[in-house]
């Protein structure tokens, strides 16, 4: 009689299939579901796409009715012709939805311009013919303008970068220390302290800002980079402590204990054993802090006015000025959108942890 080794299946059976799951109807419903998901995702992303399109429209194309949706070289001319055709003969052509993609919005957003007088315009035009003008100067010239220099918005972007960058680094470093202590040592009133740290995050910014505003005014921190860095650091600390504590909790204590037995000091064990294990978590925390500081609006609105003003409140005030430059706003928004999209994909494994302060990990 042959043994099982000779007759049994070569590949062990480890997967069982539920018969009801491979039934044609079940398969069909799965396909339908997949299609539905894709359709829903596309609908959800329509506004984002619309913003992306708007960023590349000229000033006239933004306010055209019906909204122009299809980028076509020379599209602005075709659209105007199609609209005239509609007015004269009632004939409706797809060209009414054309627009010519341009970088006008970006030029408006990033540069300070002045109307070029006839003499100056002619001068610029000869320069353009000789190929001496950059593409941005060219776009400004097409609108009869001359670029004088970078706009305020460039300075605001720089502020955003400085404030977000430094506050993130400080809050991740401090958060790492605190998280390690919370994770590894017995701290009296630990859960109360953790609650207190998180509760600062739950309050509406306005509530916190009223006293902070007075405090900052007294200390001359209003509208300073230092003041904003300090504030964002504290606000990000709650997130970084909670997130990092979760990550450090997952590193087995035994590793450090082994290192301690081997003669490492606590500090060495922290640097050489815990930190390398927590790199993924630290990176995720860093990005979440960066995104928060990058997106933050309310504090910046109330505690800065010019020197330290960041990009989000200044994008919003662009609307307030005369002649709403929707394409410039769209271009600015696109600048906010792109990093966020990249981050969302890079962090998708950690998104759930990030948005629930590390409490839910699956």
């Amino acid at each position, binding site marked *: 009689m042959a043994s099982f080794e000779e007759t049994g299946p070569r590949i062990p059976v480890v997967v069982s299939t539920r018969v009801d799951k491979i039934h044609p109807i079940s398969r069909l419903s799965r396909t339908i579901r997949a299609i539905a998901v894709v359709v829903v995702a596309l609908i959800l992303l329509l506004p984002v796409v619309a913003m992306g399109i*708007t960023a590349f429209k000229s000033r006239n194309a933004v306010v055209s009715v019906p909204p122009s949706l299809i980028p076509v070289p020379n599209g602005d001319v075709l659209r105007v012709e199609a609209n005239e055709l509609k007015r004269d003969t009632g004939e409706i052509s797809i060209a009414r939805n054309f627009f010519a993609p341009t970088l006008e919005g970006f030029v408006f957003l990033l540069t300070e311009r002045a109307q070029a007088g006839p003499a100056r315009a002619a001068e610029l035009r000869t320069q353009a013919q000789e190929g001496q003008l950059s593409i941005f100067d060219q776009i400004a010239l097409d609108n009869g303008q001359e670029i004088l220099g970078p706009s305020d918005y460039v300075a605001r972007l720089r502020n955003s970068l400085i404030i977000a960058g430094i506050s993130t680094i400080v809050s991740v470093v401090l958060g790492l220390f605190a998280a390690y202590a919370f994770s590894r040592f017995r701290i009296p009133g630990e859960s109360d302290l953790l609650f207190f740290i998180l509760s600062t995050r739950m309050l509406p910014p306005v*509530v916190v800002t009223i006293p902070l505003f007075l405090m900052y005014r007294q200390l001359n921190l209003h509208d300073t980079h230092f003041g904003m860095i300090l504030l964002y650091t504290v606000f990000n600390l709650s997130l970084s402590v909670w997130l990092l504590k979760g990550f450090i909790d997952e590193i087995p204590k035994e590793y450090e204990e082994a290192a301690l037995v081997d*003669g490492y000091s606590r500090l060495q064990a922290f640097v050489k054993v815990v930190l390398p294990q927590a790199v993924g978590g630290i990176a995720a925390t860093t990005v979440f802090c960066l995104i928060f500081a990058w997106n933050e*609006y309310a504090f910046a609105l109330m505690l800065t006015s010019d020197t330290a003003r960041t990009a989000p409140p200044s994008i919003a005030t662009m609307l307030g000025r005369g002649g709403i430059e929707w394409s410039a706003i769209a271009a600015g928004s696109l600048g906010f959108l792109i990093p966020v*999209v990249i981050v969302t994909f890079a962090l998708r494994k950690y998104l759930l942890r990030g948005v629930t302060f590390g409490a839910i990990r699956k």
Partner: protein
Amino acid sequence: MSSANLTASSGRRINRLSDRAIKNLFIWPTLILLIVMNVFPLFYSLYLSFTDYSAIARVAPRWIDFANFVDVLNNEQLWRYFATTGRFAFLSVGLQMVLGFGLAMLVREKFAGSGIVTTLILIPMMLSSVVVGLFWKLMYNPTFGYLNFLLGLSNPATSPDWLASRVANIPVPGLALWSVVFVDVWMWSPFVMLLALSGLNAIPDYLYEAAAIDRASSWFQFRRITLPQVAPLMLIAVLFRTIEAFKSFDLVMGMTGGGPGDQTEVIAVNLYRLAFTQWDTGFSSAVAYIILIIIIAISNLYIKYLNQMRDG
């Protein structure tokens, strides 16, 4: 181990910081920052809420006992703004739960590319809410906005002007609030989906298999297996989103600034106005404290459930 190594390690032991010292060293910088930037300001504003201080007047704060709080309680306008906030929170959190859960059920079963699609759906919640508000303002524009065009309501004479609460120039109260709710739902349903999805993925398959063997209907399976298993996470989502809805400021500022009239004036926006355009610092501190108490109450619940999740 050589003896040299042993000497080195015992030499280190002398300089070594005790665990206690390290604990303090690690924790105090964070605590000090939080005390200076959070505890102190909150006590300061508690004091201010009992005064008639105005940040632009060059007059020292005058103690007026509970007058501010009495004013708040008697201020009908303010309670209307609280009610608007409550309505906004109720509508948007409610819709987010339904849509978020629906989305989670949809993307629950994996298919080729489902990871990418799920991540795409999550993009809105990562965006800056003031920027979201601005670009939805463009979407909603009655003449050249995309929304009316996509809905086939391109005739300017009859199409709705969403953010002005008007349809064909006839006021429709509440339209603006619904429009803001809609954007909040667009932005945050993915968050609820993410939470619900993690709950759904944690349900062991054998529960469904056992139910299938018992010939339980899919409705029964949904009601008796899916819902109870996801409920704790949905509760967390409700609490979290309610807190956030009470805070909402950026989105409303970006879209309507509280208008038209005061139809979308949520409490955070009104508080901003009280504190930073009317400079009624004492009174606004009192309002802030009332908001603070409401939010602390909700977030206490929230954190209690979070801790249960961590331990469970």
